[in-house]
C-alpha cells in the first residue's frame, strides 16, 4: 500500500469540507436521511472489507454483528439505564467476542464454505433473538426516550447531529482500515487471502490473524448497530439481523471495489441513494422493480467488472499514466 499522495489528500479534504457543509445547505429531510444511511452502510462496508476484501473471508453474515451491537447497547439502556456511549463500546466488545468464538472453529474455512458458514451463523443468531424473551423476542426493543443531548446520544428535533456523528464514525472506520492496510497486519491479511500455505510459510500465524480481522470487523459493525438503534429508536431482529442487510453490505463493497480502502464508500455512495430513491418511487407498491434492477446490476457487475468502481478507476488511472 502506498501512502497517500498529495493529490489524494487534497481531494479527500475537499470532499470532507463538502460533506461538512452539506446539512447546512441542504435542509430537506429525505436527502439528509439518505446521506446518513450512506455513511452507515459505508462504515459497514469498510468493516466488511477488513475481513473480506483484505483477508479473503467473504462473510455474508455481518448483520449479526450489526444487530448484536444494536441489541447490546439498547438492552443495557432499557434495563440498566447504561449510557449509550458506554453501550456502544460494550456492544463492540460483545460482537468481537462472539466473532472470535465463531471464527475460531471456522479457521480452516475459505471461499464458499466460509460464506455459507457465515450465513448459517447469522441466521442462527437471528432466530435466537427472535425467540429470546430477555430482549423482547420478535416484538423488539423500543428505546426509552431520553432528554436530547450529545451525552445521551439522542436527538429529537433534528437529524443533523446524527449526520455528523455517523460521518465521524465513518471517518474513524476509514482511519482504522487505513492503519490496518498499511501495516504488517494488512500484508499478512492479503497473504492469508492468497493462500494459507503462503502465509504460513512466511511465518504468519493464520488462525490468530484471521481472528484479529474478524474481531475488528465485528467491533466496527457493532458500532454502526448502536448508532442505528439510537437513530431509529426501535430495533427488532427483522430490521437489524436480516440476511438482506448482510448481502447488501457485500454487494456495495464489491460494487465499489473490495480490497481498497475507499471502495465500500464509493459503493455505498452509489448504491444506497439508488436503492432509497427507487424504493420510495417504485417499490412502495411492492412491485419489486427496485430490487429487480438491483439484482440485474449485481449480476452484470460480477461478470464484467468484478473489481468494482475502484478497479475501473485504477485501470483508467493506469492508462492515463
Amino acid at each position, binding site marked *: 500500500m502506498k501512502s497517500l499522495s498529495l493529490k489524494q489528500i487534497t481531494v479527500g479534504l475537499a470532499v470532507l469540507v463538502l460533506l461538512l457543509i452539506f446539512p447546512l445547505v441542504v435542509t430537506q429531510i429525505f436527502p439528509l436521511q439518505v446521506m446518513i444511511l450512506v455513511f452507515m452502510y459505508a462504515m459497514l462496508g469498510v468493516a466488511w472489507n477488513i475481513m473480506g476484501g483484505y483477508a479473503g473471508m467473504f462473510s455474508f453474515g455481518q448483520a449479526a454483528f450489526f444487530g448484536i451491537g444494536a441489541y447490546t447497547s439498547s438492552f443495557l439502556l432499557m434495563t440498566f439505564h447504561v449510557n449509550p456511549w458506554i453501550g456502544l463500546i460494550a456492544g463492540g466488545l460483545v460482537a468481537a467476542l462472539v466473532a472470535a468464538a465463531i471464527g475460531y472453529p471456522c479457521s480452516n474455512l475459505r471461499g464458499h464454505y466460509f460464506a455459507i458458514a457465515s450465513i448459517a451463523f447469522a441466521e442462527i443468531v437471528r432466530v435466537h433473538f427472535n425467540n429470546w424473551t430477555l430482549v423482547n423476542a420478535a416484538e423488539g426493543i423500543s428505546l426509552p426516550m431520553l432528554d436530547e443531548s450529545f451525552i445521551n446520544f439522542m436527538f429529537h428535533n433534528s437529524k443533523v447531529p446524527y449526520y455528523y456523528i455517523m460521518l465521524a464514525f465513518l471517518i474513524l472506520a476509514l482511519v482504522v482500515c487505513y492503519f490496518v492496510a*498499511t501495516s504488517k497486519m494488512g*500484508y499478512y491479511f*492479503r497473504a492469508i487471502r*492468497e493462500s494459507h*500455505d503462503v502465509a*504460513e*510459510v*512466511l511465518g504468519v500465524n493464520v488462525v490468530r490473524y484471521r481472528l484479529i480481522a474478524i474481531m475488528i470487523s465485528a467491533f466496527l459493525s457493532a458500532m454502526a448497530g448502536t448508532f442505528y438503534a439510537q437513530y431509529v429508536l426501535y430495533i427488532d431482529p427483522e430490521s437489524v439481523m436480516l440476511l438482506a442487510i448482510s448481502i447488501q453490505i457485500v454487494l456495495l463493497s464489491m460494487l465499489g471495489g473490495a480490497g481498497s480502502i475507499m471502495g465500500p464508500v464509493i459503493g455505498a455512495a452509489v448504491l444506497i441513494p439508488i436503492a432509497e430513491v427507487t424504493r420510495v418511487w417504485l417499490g412502495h407498491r411492492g412491485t419489486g422493480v427496485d430490487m429487480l434492477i438491483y439484482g440485474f446490476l449485481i449480476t452484470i457487475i460480477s461478470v464484467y467488472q468484478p473489481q468494482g468502481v475502484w478497479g475501473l478507476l485504477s485501470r483508467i488511472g493506469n492508462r492515463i499514466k
Partner: protein
Amino acid sequence: MNKAICLDVKGMTKWFGGLAANQDIDFFIEEGEIVSIIGPNGAGKSTLFNCITGFYKPNSGKVSFFGRDIYRMRADKICKLGIARTFQVVQVISDMTVLENVVTGALLRFSRIGPATDKALEILAFTGLIDKKSLLGTELTIADKKRLEVSMALATQPRLLMLDESMAGLTPVELREIIALIKKIRGQGMTLVIVEHVMEAVMEISDRVVVLNSGKKIMEGAPKEVCSSPDVIQAYLGDKYRVVC
C-alpha cells in the same frame, strides 16, 4: 572440521490411508551443506518436506533443528525458528507487487514496513529481481515466480532453505540462472535441502544426495557414489531422466 547438525530426521513415517508415503526415513544435514533428495515420482519427497516443515502431520518420527525438537510443530512456528521452504507448485501472492511479496516475508523479522522494505530491496538485488519490483505476481513468468518465491523465503532470514523442485519447467538458460543463485545463497552460509529431478543440477551442486523410492530411503552418499549404485539406477529405470555421472 566438525560442523553443527542443522537438521536431524529419524524414523519419519507418514501414512495416507493404506499407503506409506514415508516409511522410517533417517537422514541428517550438516550446517552449510547442500543436500539433494532425489527419487522417482511418488517416492515421497514432497511428503517428507511437508512432514518436516509442519504442513503434514506425520504419524511417527523425530525431527530436530539445530538440536531443537520441531516434530509436528506448526508451520509458522517452524518458519520463525529459521526454516524456509518453497512449494512444488509455485505460490506467490498474485495481487501484490514483487516488492510487496518480499516485504511480507521480511515482516517476520522487521515489524515495521520501512525497515522491512529496505530488507526486501536488498534481497531483490541479491536474487536479481530488483528491476521487476513493481510487477504484479500475476505478471511474472514461471522462472521469475520461482525466483520470487525464493526471495520471499530468504526474506524470513532462514538458517535452512528447503527448495521443492525449483527447477521444474525451466529452460536451459533459466536453469543456469537458478543454479547460480543457489550457489550464491550457499556462499552466504546457508544450508540447503533441495528436492530435484534435474540430474545435471543435482550432480553439480550437491555435497550429498539422499535417494528415496516408494517411501523409503534406499541410499545416500556423494553424488558420484549414488548415481553409480545399481539400486538407484534400477529405481529410475523407465524414468525419462538418465542418471548422468
